């Protein structure tokens, strides 16, 4: 009767776990392996200003067309502000508004993008720009320069290169010197270039963006020149005239408009921070799933903060360790101290790596055990004695760390990652078994614990398994089903076969 319930429960768990798993895998496109890893860049702009007495309106130009990148998500973060997205002449604009605000204000806009070489610019071909209206004496200088450069170039592309080369010449000709006399910043410089390209009827504009590399706290936008050759947009380095683009260049806004404008506020500052996360294809799968996202995705572990994700990456492997424990205990019949102690030891091995983990663990337990035997002579009561062992363990850890550091072996430092209470309990338990049942039993228990810990460590260290469980936590239901089934296993343990061999009737 009970047996049937157990099977039914195990079947139910397996069916539920597997169907969620298959749905997420086949329909939502969650990857089975973690080799499709994509770096995701998060760029955060913080606009801070002092609020004035009246209503406040903040405009921020935000990325519209970003060749080479695809948008994962974006969100404005502000307290009490109304938010809207508009399309202006320079692209998208984020607009925040509030009736009144007190004191210094900070508004955030955050966007996450990932690299995608397929994401090309779906921009339309611009019309030929109207000849710019320029006052004398600049007009003559521009005209002379344009005809000069045109003579030494074959097409729009070489025209641009040549123009930029001349502008960067350390000793420019007098015409250029006149034009560049007012230039005080990189964007002014590029603006002069676009004006001259416009005079040559070549569509061109400024682009501002960030070369994404690593983690930057106060990123400065870089200005680049964009030119249309009648077929597609080309990018030129204003400092050299070469046709190129900075590596991983995320275009934030185009044109010569102000990045940010605040009505009703003063002392406006914009600060950009860039961060690179390693999110695998999961995140991409989430965007693919679209707006009508199912709860399965909303409740995925990937929606947690990255730090918490790391914790769960470890936590979710503990059931695997427990499964190994069940297999070794109930099917093989290995002796071990404590129920989950070996699994906790295995967790510590993750930090120290196996070889040093085993050595340090053995060393610690052996030393602790000998000191425990010394303590035995003092005839201490149970709780004080356990505490004494604990303190000794901490001291031993300290000594091992210091000695190994002096010897230049940094691995010794990782001894501090061992759960010392577990070690102290192991020592105490082992010494009692040692005295009551002899060294053979104690050593067998210790060896068994170590064996289980190593097996659990190996199982818990399988990266494909870790990825699988983290992406599909519902597989834990299947593991639960296995453990429940194992709980009703009434067959012999492997080691019992040799124990009862005399009874086979032979």
């Amino acid at each position: 009767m009970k047996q049937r319930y157990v099977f039914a429960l195990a079947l139910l768990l397996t069916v539920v776990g597997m169907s969620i798993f298959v749905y997420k895998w086949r329909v939502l496109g969650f990857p089975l392996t973690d080799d499709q890893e994509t770096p995701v860049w998060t760029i955060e702009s913080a606009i801070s200003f002092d609020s004035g007495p009246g209503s406040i309106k903040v405009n921020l130009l935000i990325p519209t067309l970003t060749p080479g990148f695809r948008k994962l998500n974006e969100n404005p973060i502000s307290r009490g502000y109304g938010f809207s997205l508009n399309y202006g002449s320079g692209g998208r604009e984020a607009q925040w508004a509030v009736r009144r605000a007190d004191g210094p204000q900070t508004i955030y806009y955050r966007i996450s993008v990932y690299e995608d070489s397929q994401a090309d610019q779906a921009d339309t071909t611009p019309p030929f720009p109207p000849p710019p209206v320029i006052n004398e004496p600049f007009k003559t200088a521009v005209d002379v320069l344009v005809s000069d450069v045109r003579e030494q170039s074959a097409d729009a592309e070489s025209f641009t290169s040549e123009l930029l080369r001349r502008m960067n010449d350390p000793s420019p000709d007098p015409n250029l010197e006149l034009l560049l006399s007012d230039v005080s910043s990189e964007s002014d410089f590029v603006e002069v270039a676009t004006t001259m390209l416009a005079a040559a009827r070549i569509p061109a504009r400024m682009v501002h963006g960030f070369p994404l590399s690593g983690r930057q706290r106060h990123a400065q936008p870089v200005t680049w020149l964009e030119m249309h050759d009648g077929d597609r947009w080309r990018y030129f380095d204003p400092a050299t005239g070469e046709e190129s683009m900075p590596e991983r260049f995320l275009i934030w806004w185009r044109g010569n408009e102000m990045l940010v404008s605040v009505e009703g506020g003063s002392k406006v500052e914009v600060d950009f921070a860039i961060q690179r996360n390693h999110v695998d294809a999961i995140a991409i799968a989430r965007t693919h799933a679209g707006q009508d996202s199912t709860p399965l995705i909303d409740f995925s572990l990937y929606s947690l903060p990255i730090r918490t994700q790391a914790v769960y990456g470890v936590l979710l492997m503990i059931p695997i360790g427990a499964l190994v424990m069940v297999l070794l205990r109930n099917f093989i019949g290995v002796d071990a101290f404590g129920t989950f102690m070996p699994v906790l030891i295995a967790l510590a091995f993750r930090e120290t790596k196996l070889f040093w983990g085993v050595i340090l663990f053995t060393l610690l337990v052996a030393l602790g055990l000998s000191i425990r035997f010394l303590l035995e002579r003092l005839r201490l009561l149970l709780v004080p004695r356990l505490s004494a062992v604990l303190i000794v363990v901490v001291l031993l850890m300290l000594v091992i760390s210091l000695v190994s550091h002096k010897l230049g072996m940094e691995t010794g430092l990782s001894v501090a990652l061992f759960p010392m209470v577990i070690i102290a309990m192991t020592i105490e338990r082992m010494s009692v078994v040692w005295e009551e049942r002899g060294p053979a039993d104690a050593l067998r228990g210790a060896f068994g614990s170590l064996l289980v810990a190593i097996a659990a460590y190996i199982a818990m260290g399988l990266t494909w398994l870790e990825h699988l469980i983290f992406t599909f936590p519902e597989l834990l239901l299947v593991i639960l089903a296995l453990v429940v089934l194992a709980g009703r296993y009434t067959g012999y343990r492997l080691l019992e076969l040799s124990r009862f061999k005399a009874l086979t009737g032979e």
Partner: protein
Amino acid sequence: MLGVAKKLRAAGVLGLNERNADFIMRLNPRRLYPRVDDKAITKDLALQAGMAVPDLYGVIRNQGEVRRFGEIVETHESFVVKPAQGSGGDGILVVTGRSQRKRDSFRLSSGVLISEAEIKHHLSNIVGGQYSLSGNPDKALIEYCVRFDPTFAEVSYQGVPDIRVIVYRGYPAMAMVRLPTRASDGKANLHQGALGAGVCMSIGETLKGVLDNDLVDEHPDTGALISGLLIPQWDFILQSSARGYDVTGLGYLGVDMVIDRQKGPLILEMNARPGLNIQIANCTGLTRRIKRIDEIFAADASPEERVRICRREFPAERQTSLSFE
């Protein structure tokens, strides 16, 4: 490997997983465990049912009472100190006498002299919970030290030999004699190195022994033949064991008894998770006997009735005749 498992299954050998899942969990409700896990309660229950147990000299319930030790044992030459909630015979001290010269110096069954201070430290450890299953504070019992019957004198190395009977749903299913060896330090627990000998349920005669899972014919220390010894008052032993079920309510029970020279068989303790080595000692699997008991089980049968049935049903197989050759 599967072949071995199949043979064991055919021989009706009970494995640990099966014992835990099918018998202990089903027949031994947890709430009844204190009746056997706390030897003070066991003793009370046994006394109420009119069963014979070793006299209790005193109980030490907390650290403050450790001082009373000297007073408790004042009038006794020999005694046994044991934790009320100990498991597997851990923490038991058998004091067989005192030093001739110093009255506060005691002689253990192993012959070692031990001071009163050392015994008090041991009592403190017991009270502090070192030997209790969960590390909870415990009580220490000080009780009569059994002067064992000469039947097993030849096949015991110090300590007290005892008789373990497995009682299934009130029916004694299997029994063995546990004989202390030098390795077991006078203790009668198999995993501590004691020797176990199977017993013919019909007549109470010992069969071959098992030492560390191996069959042996002779006691490793005395060299005496283990098989062929007749256990005195066998019927009384089986009846006391059968009553253990009525007292504790545990359907899968191990009853440990000793035979005292003057007082006859006494119940030492009962166990809710008796080990499986008894099968090796008897060269017989438990499952078949358990199945047979399930067939003949009658809820209203008296202990005498149940013992009569078991003596009829479970004679030793094959082994007895071999030992007579």
